[in-house]
């Protein structure tokens, strides 16, 4: 009797293999890098929105915190790149821990607008204070490297980001299936019930907010090394909305939803971008297509596939497997 490997393990292996091969065969590494970074942010946002039931329209604030850590750490303080990369998630997480307790007293709509306000305040602070870049931003961030080996070209950054994404996914899986994760899922359903069953609701909320802030900070740090430029215009509100769109399209509250959403939405946008930059079309075609796609995706996904791509496919997959098992002779 051969022990069956669960079919979903094949899918995970397939995704991993695709991730390893993609950077070698794709021409546009900038696009791939942005997609992987978005996947890291959205995995955290999906955790926050799906498991903790809290929406954030301003997750770019934490991406900015991570990127600023790298930009200021390397250019102003002369710290080694590895040290700032490791520090960035913790700085972003600490920022989330500071703003989390007051913000998370809000819920629902208020929290959504509160986080958006936070992002706009961070943007203003970045453009107003020269210590945070000021009007010109921070340029001259050195390439990433450890010791004497320094990254050359885009390829190593993409693999570094993919490695970070893998780490984030493993971590998310562990969190979701831990005792803490069960508590978080419980208060997403009902705070009162979870609280009376002994789940420290507020503390868990802040913790999950900080974790998703750490993911965003990691992505911000990687983007700062990749670009290598950070200014207040690097984190527009539309980008934070895009994270929400990706999270919703992929499926809230699934480990893989963030990745699926980031891949689907980025690819779609890239295709539309290519189409709209064809000669002969007016220059406004690009932004029109972009906004229309975002809007249509959100509205259609929420109205017709409210659980998102991953849970919907997952359900279909399970049904298929169940049917096949039922068909087998006992």
């Amino acid at each position, binding site marked *: 009797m051969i022990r069956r490997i669960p079919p979903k393990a094949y899918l995970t292996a397939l995704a991993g293999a695709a991730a390893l091969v993609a950077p070698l065969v794709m021409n546009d590494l900038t696009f791939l890098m942005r997609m992987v970074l978005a996947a890291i942010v959205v995995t955290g946002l999906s955790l926050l929105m799906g498991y903790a039931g809290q929406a954030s329209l301003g997750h770019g604030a934490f991406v900015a915190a991570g990127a600023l850590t790298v930009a200021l750490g390397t250019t102003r303080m002369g710290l080694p790149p590895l040290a700032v990369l490791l520090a960035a998630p913790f700085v972003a997480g600490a920022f989330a821990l500071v703003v989390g307790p007051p913000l998370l007293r809000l*819920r*629902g709509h*208020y929290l959504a*607008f509160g986080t958006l*306000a936070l992002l706009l305040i961070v943007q203003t602070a970045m453009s107003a204070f020269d210590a945070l870049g000021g009007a010109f931003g921070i340029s001259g961030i050195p390439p990433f490297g450890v010791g004497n080996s320094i990254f050359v070209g885009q390829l190593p950054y993409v693999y570094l980001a993919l490695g970070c994404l893998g780490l984030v996914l493993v971590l998310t899986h562990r969190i979701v299936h831990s005792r803490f994760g069960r508590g978080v899922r419980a208060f997403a359903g009902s705070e009162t019930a979870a609280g009376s069953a002994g789940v420290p609701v507020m503390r868990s909320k802040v913790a999950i907010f900080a974790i998703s802030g750490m993911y965003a900070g990691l992505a911000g740090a990687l983007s700062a090394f990749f670009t290598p430029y950070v200014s207040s215009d690097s984190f527009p509100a539309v980008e934070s909305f895009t994270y929400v769109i990706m999270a919703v399209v992929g499926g809230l509250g699934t480990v893989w939803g963030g990745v699926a959403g980031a891949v689907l939405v980025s690819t779609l946008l890239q295709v539309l971008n290519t189409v709209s930059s064809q000669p002969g079309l007016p220059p406004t075609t690009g932004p029109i*297509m972009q906004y229309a796609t975002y809007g249509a995706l959100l*509205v259609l996904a929420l*109205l017709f596939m409210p659980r998102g791509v991953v849970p919907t496919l997952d359900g279909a997959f399970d049904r298929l497997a169940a049917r096949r098992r039922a068909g087998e002779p006992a």
Partner: protein
Amino acid sequence: MKELVTYLVSGIALGSSFALIGSGFVVVHRVTRVVNFAQGSIAVVGGMLSATLLGGRLPHGVAEPAAVAICGVVGLTVGFLALGRRGTPPLISLIVTLGVSMLISAAIIWLWGQDPVSPPGLDGSATLLGATVERQRLLVVGATVLAFAALALFFSRSYVGKALTASASNPFAARMVGIDVRRMGLLAFALAGMLGGLAGVLVAPTNAVSFYSDLPLALSGFAAAVFGGLVSPLRTLVGGLGLGIAGQLTAGYLNGSYQTEVALLLMLVIMIARSSTFVHEEAK
């Protein structure tokens, strides 16, 4: 002293437009518990439409109401999408309206391009308590006062207004006495669309609007509505005026570029300070 009066008057004018957009949030949220993120986009559409209609040789006084009416239709469409299927939770509806506001942005760029548009308004300025104020800004204040008075009368005196309030306070009981709660929700969206359009029509002559203005407009309106707990039109008016005056005083005495941030910070403080009273509204 003269400076102070100028800041106060322009603050009141600015705050009136916040309050008008905020009233749209309030009308929708009262009835449906949904926060309509597209409220800012609708205001932009209102401003753009009035510019186009005036350019198409419609006289003042006809073009503006026409723009407001079309915005009502836009609001109704947003409502159809946002209320969607029955049982859509309000937070999901918020994200749907975020999507709709992006669709509206696409339409705005398609129809009007990316440049800011400013329709002609009232020309000239008047002197008030020694301070010079543009007449268009006075018109904004007057129209806001009228709109809020009409809104108060509508909710307290008319049959439909009472039905709207009934749907808001207890949807189940409202259904029992034969009120179509879903239709009331759509009506609220249409009314909010008209209020948003009115705000846009009034603001655009002094502050040009572009597809990019939707977010600041929506946020400042939401900030005003937060003062009213998203349910009270009167407190929204007070909140809007307070925010406008605070913003203008900051702009005048400290630094002009921070007035939006002052409004946002005030909004955050008010929201967090009052969060315990919000709990019962949002509790499942």
